């Protein structure tokens, strides 16, 4: 499995039967490929779909939140942006999976601006991390060796204290009141490898091998 596949398949294990889930662009999108058959999970696209299906090649009137041709599943609904963010901000989304530039041990994240360099905008990300019941960050553990999991974010925040879980190709971490807990490590790495690649302080006791690998 590639790093992306490791991250996506591990996150898919967090989905529960009946969940409404919003997946961000990039690695998060891949999570949909790993939903266990016995779980009925509904995906939302914030541009206005409840019951998002797979991508389609042909010209279509349906797009996903990345603007790509997409489909809707049976039992789905098309909604406007207000209803879409009623779901998102109102706590009706069980899980959102998003990428990030930085995450810190307090559960804050940065993902929408590198001042003076790149200002794509926050899109729906600020609402998603504020409103979803569970926020999972899906990203590579480092940016070419430079830690992305920090004591304190240095870039402008997307939100503070909203991240619940971080899944990388190396490890699974959970943000709790007392700090960032290292729960699982991928068999290819040691706990020390993870500590080395992480600026944040990691709290751990028994650490399990990454599930689903």
């Amino acid at each position, binding site marked *: 499995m590639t790093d992306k596949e490791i991250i996506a398949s591990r996150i898919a294990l967090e989905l529960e039967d009946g969940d409404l889930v919003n997946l961000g662009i990039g690695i998060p999108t891949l999570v949909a490929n790993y939903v266990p058959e016995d779980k009925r999970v509904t995906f939302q696209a914030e541009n206005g779909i409840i019951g998002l299906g797979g991508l389609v090649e042909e010209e279509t009137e*349906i797009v996903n939140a990345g603007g790509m041709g997409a489909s809707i599943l049976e039992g789905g609904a*098309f909604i406007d*942006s*207000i209803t879409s963010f009623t779901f998102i901000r109102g706590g009706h989304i069980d899980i959102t999976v998003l990428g990030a530039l930085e995450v810190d041990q307090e559960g804050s994240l940065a993902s929408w601006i590198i001042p003076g360099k790149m200002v*794509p*905008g*926050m899109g729906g*990300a600020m*609402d998603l991390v504020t409103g979803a019941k569970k926020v999972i960050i899906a990203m590579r553990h480092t940016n070419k060796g430079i830690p992305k999991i920090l004591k304190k974010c240095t870039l402008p925040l997307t939100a503070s204290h909203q991240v619940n879980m971080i899944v990388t190709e190396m490890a699974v971490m959970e943000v709790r009141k007392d700090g960032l807990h290292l729960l699982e490590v991928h068999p290819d790495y040691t706990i020390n490898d993870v500590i080395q690649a992480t600026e944040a302080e990691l709290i751990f006791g028994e650490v399990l091998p990454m599930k689903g690998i």
Partner: protein
Amino acid sequence: MRNLLNKEKFIALLHDGMSLMVGGFLTNGTPEGLIDLVVESNVKNLTIICNDGGYPDKGVGRLVANNQVKKVIASHIGTNPVIGTMMQENKIEVELVPQGTLAERIRAYGAGLGGVLTPTGLDTLVQEGKQIIEVKGKKYLLEEALGADMALIGGAIADNYGNLKYNKTMRNFNPIMATACEVVVCEPKRIIDEIDPEHVITPHPFVDYILVGEYCD
């Protein structure tokens, strides 16, 4: 049918310095025919309110590329590098608004509300210059209502009464913007006799004009 509008009449409604809300999400549901006409009119110093910056050759990005835009209010401009470059060069002003907040601000204006209290953006740059208000021990940002001079509505099927429904994901910001502007112009994909009263998304009193002609199938 009432309130039909042709190309010339639409262009006559445009003027320098006006604010335009443009429906669509990454140009899905954006009225490209109306954008054509705004380009043709060459009105300047526009304030554009749209979910995103579109693309350099599609959607509101075309107005930016044609140097007609003074300010963009959007949730995302990452798909249109022209805006990013012009912003760095101080040639265009950009106000980035979280997508859900943008929708709520527009809806608030359309509904006669002064604003809404949202937790989104707390402890971020979005908070700057805004009132923080506490309700039941929880903090919220006061986000003020946002209206505009004109709404350009796309992705719609109109009926002979001026009611609208929308094609699939083309709904997005269109019905919200149709409530929040002085003048609302729709470029429908097609016009049918009557939409079932239970399927109408934008009732006709919200719609001032329906564009007809070459821009309608």
